[in-house]
Protein backbone atom coordinates (compact mmCIF):
# COMPACT_ATOMS: atom_id res chain seq x y z
CA UNK A 1 0.00 0.00 0.00
CA UNK A 2 2.72 2.48 1.06
CA UNK A 3 4.81 1.30 -1.85
CA UNK A 4 1.98 2.08 -4.25
CA UNK A 5 1.28 5.52 -2.84
CA UNK A 6 4.92 6.56 -2.56
CA UNK A 7 6.76 4.55 -5.25
CA UNK A 8 9.91 6.64 -5.15
CA UNK A 9 10.44 6.76 -1.37
CA UNK A 10 13.38 4.65 -0.23
CA UNK A 11 12.80 3.89 3.41
CA UNK A 12 16.45 3.52 4.35
CA UNK A 13 17.43 6.89 2.85
CA UNK A 14 14.45 8.56 4.43
CA UNK A 15 15.43 7.30 7.87
CA UNK A 16 19.00 8.54 7.40
CA UNK A 17 17.67 11.96 6.36
CA UNK A 18 15.34 12.12 9.40
CA UNK A 19 18.25 11.19 11.65
CA UNK A 20 20.36 13.97 10.13
CA UNK A 21 17.62 16.51 10.74
CA UNK A 22 17.42 15.49 14.41
CA UNK A 23 21.20 15.48 14.67
CA UNK A 24 21.60 18.98 13.25
CA UNK A 25 18.67 20.42 15.21
CA UNK A 26 19.73 19.01 18.56
CA UNK A 27 23.43 19.82 18.25
CA UNK A 28 22.73 23.29 16.92
CA UNK A 29 20.28 23.74 19.80
CA UNK A 30 23.00 22.97 22.37
CA UNK A 31 25.23 25.64 20.88
CA UNK A 32 22.34 28.06 20.47
CA UNK A 33 21.28 27.71 24.11
CA UNK A 34 24.83 28.23 25.38
CA UNK A 35 25.55 31.30 23.26
CA UNK A 36 21.99 32.58 23.44
CA UNK A 37 21.87 32.51 27.24
CA UNK A 38 25.30 34.16 27.45
CA UNK A 39 24.36 36.91 25.01
CA UNK A 40 20.91 37.31 26.56
CA UNK A 41 22.40 37.65 30.05
CA UNK A 42 24.91 40.16 28.73
CA UNK A 43 22.14 42.18 27.07
CA UNK A 44 20.09 42.14 30.25
CA UNK A 45 22.86 42.76 32.78
CA UNK A 46 24.43 45.66 30.89
CA UNK A 47 21.10 47.37 30.26
CA UNK A 48 20.02 50.54 32.02
CA UNK A 49 19.57 50.12 35.77
CA UNK A 50 20.71 46.51 35.82
CA UNK A 51 23.52 44.88 37.76
CA UNK A 52 26.38 45.53 35.31
CA UNK A 53 24.95 48.66 33.74
CA UNK A 54 27.30 49.52 30.87
CA UNK A 55 25.94 51.53 28.00
CA UNK A 56 28.89 50.99 25.65
CA UNK A 57 28.99 47.22 26.03
CA UNK A 58 25.21 47.03 25.75
CA UNK A 59 25.24 48.89 22.43
CA UNK A 60 28.02 46.66 21.05
CA UNK A 61 26.31 43.39 22.03
CA UNK A 62 22.94 44.65 20.79
CA UNK A 63 24.52 45.64 17.46
CA UNK A 64 26.12 42.20 16.96
CA UNK A 65 22.85 40.47 17.83
CA UNK A 66 20.86 42.68 15.47
CA UNK A 67 23.26 42.31 12.57
CA UNK A 68 23.24 38.51 12.68
CA UNK A 69 19.49 38.48 13.14
CA UNK A 70 19.06 40.70 10.11
CA UNK A 71 20.98 38.51 7.66
CA UNK A 72 18.72 35.98 5.90
CA UNK A 73 19.82 32.46 6.73
CA UNK A 74 20.45 31.39 3.15
CA UNK A 75 22.90 34.27 2.75
CA UNK A 76 24.46 33.69 6.15
CA UNK A 77 25.40 30.13 5.18
CA UNK A 78 27.13 31.31 2.04
CA UNK A 79 28.91 34.17 3.83
CA UNK A 80 30.16 31.76 6.48
CA UNK A 81 31.65 29.23 4.03
CA UNK A 82 35.28 30.38 4.61
CA UNK A 83 34.74 30.41 8.38
CA UNK A 84 33.10 26.97 8.30
CA UNK A 85 35.90 25.53 6.17
CA UNK A 86 38.46 26.92 8.63
CA UNK A 87 36.55 25.57 11.64
CA UNK A 88 35.32 22.15 10.41
CA UNK A 89 37.76 21.46 7.57
CA UNK A 90 34.91 21.28 5.06
CA UNK A 91 31.80 23.23 4.13
CA UNK A 92 29.68 20.24 3.20
CA UNK A 93 27.71 17.83 5.37
CA UNK A 94 25.71 18.00 8.57
CA UNK A 95 28.57 19.12 10.80
CA UNK A 96 29.47 21.91 8.43
CA UNK A 97 25.96 23.29 8.80
CA UNK A 98 26.29 23.64 12.57
CA UNK A 99 28.28 26.93 12.78
CA UNK A 100 25.83 28.66 10.47
CA UNK A 101 22.83 27.22 12.28
CA UNK A 102 24.17 28.34 15.67
CA UNK A 103 25.25 31.78 14.49
CA UNK A 104 21.86 32.22 12.89
CA UNK A 105 19.78 31.06 15.86
CA UNK A 106 21.77 32.22 18.91
CA UNK A 107 21.11 35.98 18.42
CA UNK A 108 17.40 35.23 17.98
CA UNK A 109 17.35 33.15 21.15
CA UNK A 110 19.44 35.81 22.96
CA UNK A 111 16.60 38.30 22.46
CA UNK A 112 14.08 35.81 23.79
CA UNK A 113 16.34 35.20 26.81
CA UNK A 114 16.60 38.94 27.37
CA UNK A 115 12.80 39.28 27.31
CA UNK A 116 12.48 36.37 29.74
CA UNK A 117 14.99 37.93 32.15
CA UNK A 118 13.21 41.28 32.04
CA UNK A 119 10.08 39.53 33.27
CA UNK A 120 11.83 38.54 36.51
CA UNK A 121 10.39 40.60 39.35
CA UNK A 122 12.81 43.43 40.22
CA UNK A 123 11.71 43.10 43.83
CA UNK A 124 13.03 39.56 44.02
CA UNK A 125 16.45 40.67 42.76
CA UNK A 126 16.37 43.43 45.34
CA UNK A 127 15.45 40.93 48.05
CA UNK A 128 18.47 38.82 47.08
CA UNK A 129 20.67 41.93 47.23
CA UNK A 130 19.29 42.78 50.65
CA UNK A 131 20.41 39.32 51.80
CA UNK A 132 23.94 40.06 50.66
CA UNK A 133 23.93 37.91 47.49
CA UNK A 134 26.80 38.16 44.99
CA UNK A 135 25.96 38.92 41.37
CA UNK A 136 26.93 35.33 40.51
CA UNK A 137 24.39 34.05 43.03
CA UNK A 138 21.73 36.37 41.67
CA UNK A 139 22.36 35.10 38.12
CA UNK A 140 22.34 31.40 38.93
CA UNK A 141 19.89 31.27 41.82
CA UNK A 142 17.46 34.06 40.98
CA UNK A 143 17.55 35.22 37.35
CA UNK A 144 17.90 31.88 35.57
CA UNK A 145 15.57 29.77 37.76
CA UNK A 146 12.91 32.50 37.90
CA UNK A 147 12.94 32.94 34.12
CA UNK A 148 13.20 29.21 33.34
CA UNK A 149 9.71 28.75 31.83
CA UNK A 150 10.35 31.69 29.48
CA UNK A 151 13.80 30.29 28.62
CA UNK A 152 12.35 26.89 27.79
CA UNK A 153 9.41 28.16 25.74
CA UNK A 154 11.85 30.49 23.94
CA UNK A 155 14.09 27.49 23.26
CA UNK A 156 11.10 25.64 21.82
CA UNK A 157 10.34 28.47 19.41
CA UNK A 158 14.03 28.63 18.47
CA UNK A 159 14.30 24.87 17.96
CA UNK A 160 11.35 24.93 15.57
CA UNK A 161 12.91 27.79 13.64
CA UNK A 162 16.11 25.71 13.57
CA UNK A 163 14.30 22.75 11.99
CA UNK A 164 13.33 25.10 9.17
CA UNK A 165 16.93 26.32 8.89
CA UNK A 166 18.31 22.77 8.67
CA UNK A 167 16.13 22.30 5.57
CA UNK A 168 17.58 25.46 4.04
CA UNK A 169 21.07 24.19 4.90
CA UNK A 170 20.42 21.56 2.23
CA UNK A 171 21.93 24.02 -0.28
CA UNK A 172 25.40 23.26 1.10
CA UNK A 173 24.63 19.56 1.10
CA UNK A 174 23.97 19.43 4.80
CA UNK A 175 21.79 16.35 4.54
CA UNK A 176 18.55 16.02 6.43
CA UNK A 177 14.95 16.08 5.25
CA UNK A 178 15.19 19.43 3.43
CA UNK A 179 18.16 18.30 1.41
CA UNK A 180 16.45 14.97 0.73
CA UNK A 181 13.19 16.59 -0.35
CA UNK A 182 14.99 18.93 -2.74
CA UNK A 183 17.58 16.68 -4.39
CA UNK A 184 15.75 13.34 -4.25
CA UNK A 185 12.28 14.76 -4.68
CA UNK A 186 11.94 18.12 -6.36
CA UNK A 187 14.91 17.83 -8.72
CA UNK A 188 13.84 14.34 -9.91
CA UNK A 189 10.17 15.35 -10.12
CA UNK A 190 9.38 12.69 -7.48
CA UNK A 191 6.80 14.71 -5.61
CA UNK A 192 5.79 11.83 -3.34
CA UNK A 193 9.25 12.21 -1.74
CA UNK A 194 8.67 15.93 -1.20
CA UNK A 195 5.31 15.16 0.36
CA UNK A 196 6.63 12.51 2.76
CA UNK A 197 9.52 14.75 3.83
CA UNK A 198 7.13 17.62 4.51
CA UNK A 199 4.88 15.44 6.63
CA UNK A 200 7.88 14.20 8.60
CA UNK A 201 9.11 17.76 9.23
CA UNK A 202 5.64 18.77 10.43
CA UNK A 203 5.60 15.78 12.79
CA UNK A 204 9.05 16.68 14.15
CA UNK A 205 7.88 20.25 14.75
CA UNK A 206 4.81 18.94 16.62
CA UNK A 207 7.01 16.71 18.77
CA UNK A 208 9.33 19.60 19.69
CA UNK A 209 6.39 21.86 20.50
CA UNK A 210 4.73 19.20 22.62
CA UNK A 211 7.89 18.47 24.62
CA UNK A 212 8.61 22.20 25.05
CA UNK A 213 5.10 22.95 26.29
CA UNK A 214 5.21 19.99 28.65
CA UNK A 215 8.50 21.10 30.26
CA UNK A 216 7.39 24.74 30.44
CA UNK A 217 4.20 23.77 32.27
CA UNK A 218 6.09 21.50 34.64
CA UNK A 219 8.53 24.29 35.53
CA UNK A 220 6.01 27.06 35.96
CA UNK A 221 4.90 27.23 39.60
CA UNK A 222 3.39 30.69 39.35
Amino acid at each position, binding site marked *: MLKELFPNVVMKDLLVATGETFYMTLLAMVGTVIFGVLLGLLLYLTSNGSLWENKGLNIIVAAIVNIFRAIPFIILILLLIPFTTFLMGTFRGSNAALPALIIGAAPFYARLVEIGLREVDKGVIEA*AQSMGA*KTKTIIFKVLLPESMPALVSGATVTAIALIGSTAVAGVIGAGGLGDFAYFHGFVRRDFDVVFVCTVLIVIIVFIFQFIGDFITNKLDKR
Partner: protein
Amino acid sequence: MISIEGLSKIFHLNQKKITAVDNLNLTIQDGEIFGVIGYSGAGKSTLIRLLNRLEEPTSGKITIGEKEITTLDKNKLRMARQNIGMIFQHFNLLWSRTVSENIAFPLEIAGVPAKERVQRVNELIELVGLSGRENAYPSQLSGGQKQRVGIARALANNPKVLLCDEATSALDPETTNSILDLLVDINERLGLTIILITHEMHVIRKICNRVAVMENGKVVEQGDVLDVFLKPKQPVTKKFVEQVMENQDGDLDQLLEEYTSGELVRLHFVGETANQALISKISREFTVEVNILSGKITQTKLGAYGTLVVQIIGEKNEVNQTIQFIKEETSVEVEVLVNA
Protein backbone atom coordinates in the same frame (compact mmCIF):
# COMPACT_ATOMS: atom_id res chain seq x y z
CA MET B 1 21.94 51.39 68.28
CA ILE B 2 21.31 52.78 64.86
CA SER B 3 22.30 56.34 64.22
CA ILE B 4 21.62 58.36 61.13
CA GLU B 5 23.42 61.66 60.72
CA GLY B 6 22.88 64.24 58.03
CA LEU B 7 21.54 61.66 55.60
CA SER B 8 20.51 62.94 52.18
CA LYS B 9 19.46 61.31 48.95
CA ILE B 10 19.04 63.33 45.79
CA PHE B 11 17.65 61.72 42.65
CA HIS B 12 18.30 63.21 39.24
CA LEU B 13 15.32 62.78 37.01
CA ASN B 14 15.32 64.41 33.58
CA GLN B 15 17.81 67.02 34.82
CA LYS B 16 15.53 67.80 37.76
CA LYS B 17 16.84 67.39 41.26
CA ILE B 18 14.52 65.55 43.60
CA THR B 19 15.50 65.50 47.25
CA ALA B 20 13.92 62.34 48.61
CA VAL B 21 15.69 62.42 51.96
CA ASP B 22 16.85 65.78 53.23
CA ASN B 23 19.61 66.07 55.85
CA LEU B 24 17.91 63.60 58.14
CA ASN B 25 19.01 62.75 61.68
CA LEU B 26 17.61 59.89 63.71
CA THR B 27 18.66 57.61 66.54
CA ILE B 28 17.07 54.22 67.07
CA GLN B 29 17.68 52.23 70.24
CA ASP B 30 18.51 48.52 70.34
CA GLY B 31 15.49 46.29 70.75
CA GLU B 32 12.84 48.89 70.05
CA ILE B 33 10.18 48.89 67.38
CA PHE B 34 10.60 52.17 65.60
CA GLY B 35 7.98 53.36 63.17
CA VAL B 36 8.37 55.85 60.37
CA ILE B 37 5.11 57.18 59.01
CA GLY B 38 4.43 59.48 56.10
CA TYR B 39 2.34 59.84 53.00
CA SER B 40 3.64 58.45 49.73
CA GLY B 41 6.41 60.65 48.42
CA ALA B 42 7.50 61.66 51.90
CA GLY B 43 10.77 59.78 51.41
CA LYS B 44 10.19 57.03 53.95
CA SER B 45 10.69 54.22 51.44
CA THR B 46 13.94 55.77 50.27
CA LEU B 47 15.02 56.15 53.89
CA ILE B 48 14.63 52.45 54.71
CA ARG B 49 16.37 51.46 51.48
CA LEU B 50 19.27 53.75 52.38
CA LEU B 51 19.75 51.87 55.65
CA ASN B 52 21.06 48.75 53.87
CA ARG B 53 22.25 50.76 50.89
CA LEU B 54 19.87 49.28 48.35
CA GLU B 55 19.92 52.97 47.56
CA GLU B 56 23.28 54.76 47.77
CA PRO B 57 23.14 57.87 49.97
CA THR B 58 24.18 61.18 48.43
CA SER B 59 25.67 62.28 51.73
CA GLY B 60 25.49 61.50 55.42
CA LYS B 61 26.42 58.72 57.79
CA ILE B 62 24.60 55.57 58.90
CA THR B 63 25.89 53.47 61.76
CA ILE B 64 24.28 50.18 62.72
CA GLY B 65 25.75 48.74 65.91
CA GLU B 66 29.50 49.10 65.53
CA LYS B 67 29.49 49.24 61.76
CA GLU B 68 29.49 52.41 59.77
CA ILE B 69 27.38 51.21 56.85
CA THR B 70 28.08 54.18 54.64
CA THR B 71 31.85 53.54 54.39
CA LEU B 72 31.79 49.77 53.79
CA ASP B 73 33.20 48.46 50.52
CA LYS B 74 31.16 46.13 48.32
CA ASN B 75 32.18 42.89 50.01
CA LYS B 76 31.91 44.17 53.56
CA LEU B 77 28.52 45.61 52.69
CA ARG B 78 27.36 42.18 51.52
CA MET B 79 28.48 40.68 54.82
CA ALA B 80 26.78 43.45 56.77
CA ARG B 81 23.55 42.92 54.82
CA GLN B 82 23.44 39.33 55.99
CA ASN B 83 22.87 40.76 59.46
CA ILE B 84 20.11 43.13 58.40
CA GLY B 85 16.87 41.38 57.55
CA MET B 86 14.37 43.03 55.27
CA ILE B 87 10.74 42.34 54.42
CA PHE B 88 8.76 43.90 51.62
CA GLN B 89 5.27 45.07 50.77
CA HIS B 90 4.99 42.57 47.91
CA PHE B 91 6.90 39.83 49.77
CA ASN B 92 9.39 39.32 46.91
CA LEU B 93 9.57 35.56 47.27
CA LEU B 94 11.06 33.35 44.56
CA TRP B 95 8.08 31.65 42.95
CA SER B 96 10.30 28.86 41.65
CA ARG B 97 11.16 27.78 45.18
CA THR B 98 9.06 26.15 47.87
CA VAL B 99 8.52 27.73 51.31
CA SER B 100 11.49 25.77 52.70
CA GLU B 101 13.71 26.61 49.76
CA ASN B 102 12.83 30.30 49.98
CA ILE B 103 13.74 30.38 53.65
CA ALA B 104 16.95 28.45 52.90
CA PHE B 105 18.04 31.01 50.28
CA PRO B 106 19.71 33.53 52.62
CA LEU B 107 21.41 30.60 54.37
CA GLU B 108 22.80 29.44 51.01
CA ILE B 109 24.05 32.97 50.41
CA ALA B 110 25.75 32.99 53.81
CA GLY B 111 27.38 29.63 53.03
CA VAL B 112 25.66 27.64 55.79
CA PRO B 113 26.23 23.87 55.30
CA ALA B 114 23.23 21.92 53.96
CA LYS B 115 22.63 19.97 57.15
CA GLU B 116 22.44 23.04 59.37
CA ARG B 117 20.28 24.72 56.76
CA VAL B 118 17.59 22.08 57.05
CA GLN B 119 17.55 22.39 60.81
CA ARG B 120 17.45 26.17 60.79
CA VAL B 121 14.68 26.22 58.18
CA ASN B 122 12.57 23.93 60.35
CA GLU B 123 13.07 26.19 63.38
CA LEU B 124 12.03 29.22 61.35
CA ILE B 125 8.96 27.54 59.89
CA GLU B 126 7.92 26.71 63.43
CA LEU B 127 8.63 30.27 64.60
CA VAL B 128 6.43 31.93 62.00
CA GLY B 129 3.69 29.31 62.28
CA LEU B 130 3.90 27.72 58.85
CA SER B 131 4.28 24.10 59.87
CA GLY B 132 2.76 21.80 57.28
CA ARG B 133 3.26 24.27 54.42
CA GLU B 134 7.00 23.59 53.94
CA ASN B 135 6.65 22.23 50.44
CA ALA B 136 4.05 24.64 49.14
CA TYR B 137 4.97 27.12 46.44
CA PRO B 138 4.34 30.84 47.07
CA SER B 139 1.50 30.82 44.53
CA GLN B 140 -0.34 28.38 46.78
CA LEU B 141 -0.13 30.66 49.83
CA SER B 142 -2.31 33.52 51.05
CA GLY B 143 -0.86 37.02 51.43
CA GLY B 144 -0.40 36.60 55.16
CA GLN B 145 1.36 33.29 54.71
CA LYS B 146 3.63 34.80 52.07
CA GLN B 147 4.64 37.56 54.45
CA ARG B 148 5.35 34.92 57.12
CA VAL B 149 7.74 33.26 54.67
CA GLY B 150 9.26 36.71 54.07
CA ILE B 151 9.74 37.18 57.79
CA ALA B 152 11.24 33.70 58.28
CA ARG B 153 13.59 34.38 55.36
CA ALA B 154 14.62 37.75 56.82
CA LEU B 155 15.36 36.15 60.20
CA ALA B 156 17.31 33.19 58.80
CA ASN B 157 20.79 34.54 59.47
CA ASN B 158 19.90 35.82 62.97
CA PRO B 159 20.01 39.51 62.11
CA LYS B 160 20.13 42.24 64.76
CA VAL B 161 17.90 44.52 62.75
CA LEU B 162 14.75 43.94 60.74
CA LEU B 163 13.68 46.50 58.14
CA CYS B 164 9.99 46.41 57.20
CA ASP B 165 9.14 48.21 53.97
CA GLU B 166 5.34 48.67 54.09
CA ALA B 167 5.18 45.06 55.21
CA THR B 168 1.45 45.03 55.89
CA SER B 169 0.20 47.47 53.26
CA ALA B 170 -0.85 44.72 50.85
CA LEU B 171 -2.72 42.74 53.49
CA ASP B 172 -6.29 42.88 54.76
CA PRO B 173 -6.87 44.27 58.29
CA GLU B 174 -7.17 40.91 60.00
CA THR B 175 -4.04 39.50 58.37
CA THR B 176 -2.25 42.77 59.13
CA ASN B 177 -3.00 42.26 62.81
CA SER B 178 -1.68 38.71 62.83
CA ILE B 179 1.53 39.78 61.07
CA LEU B 180 1.95 42.67 63.53
CA ASP B 181 1.48 40.25 66.44
CA LEU B 182 4.18 38.07 64.94
CA LEU B 183 6.54 41.06 64.67
CA VAL B 184 5.96 41.98 68.34
CA ASP B 185 6.51 38.35 69.27
CA ILE B 186 9.87 38.09 67.50
CA ASN B 187 10.87 41.52 68.79
CA GLU B 188 10.32 40.32 72.36
CA ARG B 189 11.67 36.82 71.88
CA LEU B 190 14.79 37.64 69.87
CA GLY B 191 15.47 41.17 71.09
CA LEU B 192 15.47 42.30 67.49
CA THR B 193 15.41 45.98 66.56
CA ILE B 194 12.59 46.58 64.12
CA ILE B 195 12.31 49.60 61.88
CA LEU B 196 9.09 49.77 59.96
CA ILE B 197 7.73 52.28 57.55
CA THR B 198 4.05 52.60 56.87
CA HIS B 199 1.32 55.01 55.93
CA GLU B 200 -1.11 53.39 58.33
CA MET B 201 -1.29 54.96 61.79
CA HIS B 202 -2.91 51.90 63.34
CA VAL B 203 0.25 49.91 62.59
CA ILE B 204 2.26 52.49 64.54
CA ARG B 205 -0.34 52.54 67.29
CA LYS B 206 -0.39 48.78 67.65
CA ILE B 207 3.27 47.84 67.83
CA CYS B 208 5.67 50.78 67.87
CA ASN B 209 7.52 52.20 70.86
CA ARG B 210 8.58 55.34 69.07
CA VAL B 211 7.56 57.00 65.87
CA ALA B 212 8.98 59.53 63.44
CA VAL B 213 6.68 61.44 61.10
CA MET B 214 8.19 62.23 57.72
CA GLU B 215 7.24 64.92 55.27
CA ASN B 216 9.23 66.17 52.26
CA GLY B 217 12.25 64.07 53.15
CA LYS B 218 12.49 65.39 56.69
CA VAL B 219 11.45 64.10 60.08
CA VAL B 220 8.94 66.74 61.21
CA GLU B 221 8.02 65.15 64.49
CA GLN B 222 9.20 62.23 66.58
CA GLY B 223 8.81 60.76 70.03
CA ASP B 224 7.07 58.09 72.08
CA VAL B 225 3.98 56.87 70.28
CA LEU B 226 1.67 57.86 73.13
CA ASP B 227 3.06 61.40 73.28
CA VAL B 228 2.70 61.85 69.56
CA PHE B 229 -0.86 60.57 69.72
CA LEU B 230 -1.71 62.81 72.61
CA LYS B 231 -0.09 66.02 71.49
CA PRO B 232 0.44 65.93 67.76
CA LYS B 233 2.12 69.22 66.85
CA GLN B 234 2.40 69.18 63.08
CA PRO B 235 -0.66 69.25 60.82
CA VAL B 236 0.49 66.07 59.06
CA THR B 237 0.77 64.27 62.40
CA LYS B 238 -2.70 65.43 63.41
CA LYS B 239 -4.05 63.99 60.21
CA PHE B 240 -2.44 60.63 60.92
CA VAL B 241 -3.79 60.60 64.47
CA GLU B 242 -7.26 61.36 63.15
CA GLN B 243 -6.89 58.33 60.87
CA VAL B 244 -7.07 56.14 63.93
CA MET B 245 -9.27 58.28 66.14
CA GLU B 246 -11.62 59.48 63.42
CA ASN B 247 -12.45 63.10 63.17
CA GLN B 248 -14.96 63.81 65.87
CA ASP B 249 -15.14 67.56 65.48
CA GLY B 250 -17.25 67.11 62.38
CA ASP B 251 -20.25 65.81 64.22
CA LEU B 252 -19.62 67.86 67.34
CA ASP B 253 -21.79 70.73 66.15
CA GLN B 254 -24.57 68.29 65.61
CA LEU B 255 -24.17 66.93 69.14
CA LEU B 256 -24.31 70.44 70.57
CA GLU B 257 -27.55 71.08 68.77
CA GLU B 258 -29.21 67.88 69.78
CA TYR B 259 -28.17 67.57 73.41
CA THR B 260 -29.02 70.83 75.08
CA SER B 261 -29.53 69.75 78.69
CA GLY B 262 -26.75 69.36 81.24
CA GLU B 263 -23.11 69.80 80.32
CA LEU B 264 -21.38 68.44 77.24
CA VAL B 265 -17.88 67.45 78.22
CA ARG B 266 -14.95 65.94 76.33
CA LEU B 267 -12.79 63.57 78.36
CA HIS B 268 -9.23 62.80 77.28
CA PHE B 269 -7.95 59.48 78.51
CA VAL B 270 -4.21 58.95 78.40
CA GLY B 271 -2.21 55.89 79.36
CA GLU B 272 -3.34 54.04 82.42
CA THR B 273 -6.27 56.30 83.25
CA ALA B 274 -8.21 54.79 80.39
CA ASN B 275 -8.45 51.64 82.39
CA GLN B 276 -10.21 53.30 85.32
CA ALA B 277 -13.90 52.80 85.60
CA LEU B 278 -14.46 56.54 85.58
CA ILE B 279 -17.98 56.64 84.24
CA SER B 280 -19.43 54.17 86.71
CA LYS B 281 -17.54 55.88 89.51
CA ILE B 282 -19.00 59.33 88.94
CA SER B 283 -22.49 58.06 88.39
CA ARG B 284 -22.25 56.23 91.69
CA GLU B 285 -20.74 59.06 93.74
CA PHE B 286 -22.71 61.98 92.31
CA THR B 287 -26.39 62.25 91.61
CA VAL B 288 -25.88 62.81 87.90
CA GLU B 289 -26.78 60.93 84.78
CA VAL B 290 -23.93 60.26 82.35
CA ASN B 291 -24.83 59.84 78.73
CA ILE B 292 -22.04 58.73 76.37
CA LEU B 293 -22.49 60.48 73.02
CA SER B 294 -19.43 59.59 71.02
CA GLY B 295 -15.87 58.56 71.46
CA LYS B 296 -13.18 56.07 70.96
CA ILE B 297 -10.59 54.49 73.19
CA THR B 298 -7.69 52.79 71.48
CA GLN B 299 -4.82 50.69 72.75
CA THR B 300 -1.24 51.67 72.04
CA LYS B 301 1.75 49.60 73.02
CA LEU B 302 2.32 51.84 76.07
CA GLY B 303 -1.28 52.07 77.30
CA ALA B 304 -4.69 53.20 76.23
CA TYR B 305 -5.54 56.52 74.72
CA GLY B 306 -8.75 58.11 73.57
CA THR B 307 -11.53 60.60 74.00
CA LEU B 308 -15.15 60.38 75.03
CA VAL B 309 -17.80 63.02 74.60
CA VAL B 310 -20.35 62.69 77.39
CA GLN B 311 -23.41 64.57 78.51
CA ILE B 312 -23.65 65.07 82.27
CA ILE B 313 -27.22 65.77 83.38
CA GLY B 314 -28.25 66.79 86.88
CA GLU B 315 -28.40 69.69 89.35
CA LYS B 316 -26.03 72.42 88.18
CA ASN B 317 -24.11 72.26 91.41
CA GLU B 318 -23.77 68.52 91.30
CA VAL B 319 -22.62 68.64 87.70
CA ASN B 320 -19.95 71.21 88.54
CA GLN B 321 -18.75 69.11 91.43
CA THR B 322 -18.53 66.11 89.16
CA ILE B 323 -16.37 67.99 86.68
CA GLN B 324 -14.26 69.31 89.51
CA PHE B 325 -13.79 65.77 90.75
CA ILE B 326 -12.64 64.46 87.41
CA LYS B 327 -10.22 67.35 87.01
CA GLU B 328 -8.66 67.03 90.44
CA GLU B 329 -8.91 63.40 91.45
CA THR B 330 -8.13 61.67 88.18
CA SER B 331 -5.61 62.25 85.42
CA VAL B 332 -8.34 62.40 82.81
CA GLU B 333 -8.31 65.76 81.07
CA VAL B 334 -11.65 67.52 80.88
CA GLU B 335 -12.82 70.00 78.32
CA VAL B 336 -16.24 71.57 78.81
CA LEU B 337 -17.75 72.03 75.40
CA VAL B 338 -20.71 74.22 76.18
CA ASN B 339 -22.81 75.51 79.05
CA ALA B 340 -26.33 74.44 78.48
